[in-house]
């Protein structure tokens, strides 16, 4: 019965979206604002530490609490 009415969820406030870039050689992770055209497992920019090509490993929205 409940399966027919799953949780629709709360109305979401506008959440900023971030892109995580990971360097495959040194493991450095960088978090930046999402840019149009980003997608998961796309080649990212250059690693700041070792200048290797990074990989976008995640794109997600995060609720930032403003106090």
């Amino acid at each position, binding site marked *: 019965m*409940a*399966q027919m*009415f*799953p*949780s*629709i*969820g*709360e*109305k*979401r406030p506008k*959440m900023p*979206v971030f892109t995580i870039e990971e360097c495959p050689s040194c493991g450095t992770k960088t978090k930046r604002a*999402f840019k*149009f*055209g*980003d*997608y*998961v*497992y*796309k080649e990212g920019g250059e690693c700041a530490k070792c200048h290797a090509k990074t*990989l976008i490993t*995640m*794109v*997600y*929205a*995060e*609720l930032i609490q403003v106090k």
Partner: protein
Amino acid sequence: MWTLSLGFLQLGGLLGGGSSPVDLIVYILLTVVSFAVVFMYGQRIQAYSALRDVRINLEKLQGLKDRSRKEAIDYMTTNMKAPKDVQQRVDQVLEYFTIMPVDMDPSGIVGKIEHVTNQQDDRIRAELKSIAPQADPVQLSVEQNILEVATSLNLLFKIVRHFYIQGQKTKSIYIIVQLQMILPMVIQEADALTSAIEAFKLAQPIGDGLGPIVAGKLMVGKEKTTIERETVYAKNEYKGRSIIALKAEGPMGTVGRPHIGVEKILNDQTNKISTIIMVDAALKLEGESTGEVAEGVGAAIGGIGTEKFRIEAAATQKDIPMYAIVVKQSLIDAISVMRKEIAEATDKVVERIHRLIEEKTKEGDTILLVGVGNTLGVSQ
């Protein structure tokens, strides 16, 4: 009786009248009349107030429907370089219908349903391509997703309007109250659908993209093979086992045809699959937390059931166990930009997959991992 009228008289005093027998008669009459009105027309009054409530919600639904239609048209003209006069064609697409096969004799119905739904999919794609020939595959898939939302809202609006008008005509409280009862949920769902458009337009991964992200993790940097339309797989290894990871081809907004992929891989004798693991997003119940990982057995795949049927049939025929790992989320989270909680669950899912492989398989085995879901914004 005396005390009762005394009450009336005092009330009369409040209203400015004197305490004369005329007042007494007036008040008794008023009481009788109002009782009679409530007795005879109570239901009708209730129907009117319910009808008003329904109308307010119907107007809201219309607003959402119109907005989604406008978004679909705007995306076409601005991103896909479609001509300015696409409105009419978009409206035609919104009215497309699919006639489901008759189910009086259910044998073989899955194939028939699949035939019809594939055709529906092809039809819309062909239509979009002819409207905007310059659009790239990602844009086409995004527009298809937006149109799906717009079509759903259009249908919801029409059904609610139908019962609203029927209620108006018949003044039947039973029709109107039933409508009034389900409307809060209908509106919530419509809101959720509308909010999904934002993620679609920017081609961002949605909550339902969890399965593809997990499968994609095992496919990055490996050679990818297309096994079926918009469905790819790659081979990987883990602790002496081979893993074949299968997902829809990203970053387009598509779910692919994983069921055909699974069928083909299982039927290929050289693969010798010993275990199937399926990863999917699951709708949570109220009170469950978003991003919760749960494990089970069976084919973890939603939809109308044709995909599930094929996977189950193929696995049963070869007697291959099916394990399912799901991540709980609400409807709104499943179709909007992926939340951090769900993104973080992907690592937990990979851990579970590894544990499952270690416990349930032995070295030299081949495992088929299927990442089920819409792969918008998720490559491989």
